[in-house]
């Protein structure tokens, strides 16, 4: 099983890396870019259910105060 876990800041939590990236893109002339948000993706291989991957998020991968997580099953080629 291959799971993709995406950890992003909760809405309202300032994303400093996203903001600097926005400035960088504007500096290159991409001035229609309105917002950049960053996220971290973990690809996890192992025989686990979605519930167990959720537990991984709760116990380690996300800090519930500042981050949200989404879990997607990735098809194995």
């Amino acid at each position, binding site marked *: 099983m291959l799971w993709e876990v995406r950890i992003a800041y909760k809405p309202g939590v*300032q994303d*400093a*890396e996203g903001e600097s990236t926005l400035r960088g893109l504007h500096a290159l002339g991409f001035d229609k870019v309105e917002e950049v948000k960053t996220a*971290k993706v973990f690809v996890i291989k192992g025989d686990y259910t979605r519930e167990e991957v959720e537990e991984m998020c709760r116990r380690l*991968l996300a*800090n519930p*105060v500042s981050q949200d997580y989404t879990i997607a099953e990735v098809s194995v080629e």
Partner: protein
Amino acid sequence: MALEFCIFRAPGTNCDAETKHALEYFGCRARVVHINKLISGEVKLSSFDGIVIPGGFSYGDHIRSGAILGKMVGERLKDQLKEFSENGKPILGICNGFQVLVEAGLLPAFRGFSDVPEAALGKNLSNRFEDRWIYLRNDNKGKCVFTRGLEILRMPVNHGEGKLILPQGEEEKLYRQLLENDQVVFRYAKADGTLALGEYPANPNGSFRDIAGICDPRGTILGMMPHPEKAFHRITYPDWTRTGLEGVGDGYWIFKNMVDYAMTLI
């Protein structure tokens, strides 16, 4: 009988030597112990009089700063730490150590140790690693055993993730609780002691209400982003030759308070 302190070590810890020096300066024994020895039970926390979780980049600060060591401490050492803390013994987390205490649920610990973090130390608003000397004001009313008698202190910060975040929508309620419990300890300030009020560079990371350090409701667990062990002697200050200041630095007093307090327990 000399007090003995335990300094946690994990891959990436890098302030353990200065921390050991600080504690040994007072005639204490300080033992740097690898986290694996604590988890395996080879070394027991109960034999120590105090704990310091030092600065560094434990486990490469992967996932989030302090997260991996924080979970190891919070899940595998929770019972030992609970007993340690219930006996009133002091625990100090500096920089990465503060991040570890928050990720482990040992701070702010409004209702005792929590299973999930009740706060976060987020990326600095400047989006930079802030590596410079700053001023702190001790705003604790007397509960924190590490800071009695202290006012304005100067010491360095060296962190990329130091902005204290409380759960959204509950910030003010939890802030009031921190104040009621006398858990707010250090705030970022200007040289004259007036608060930074969120302004850069006095507040290096955009931390909520300028908070640089908090303690647990008992006052015996302190987490702080700045580094007292790096301001232990005046000769480590960047301007000590110009200002002619000699002797001990401001960080000395935090360790002295910790040692003096630990002495009262034996």
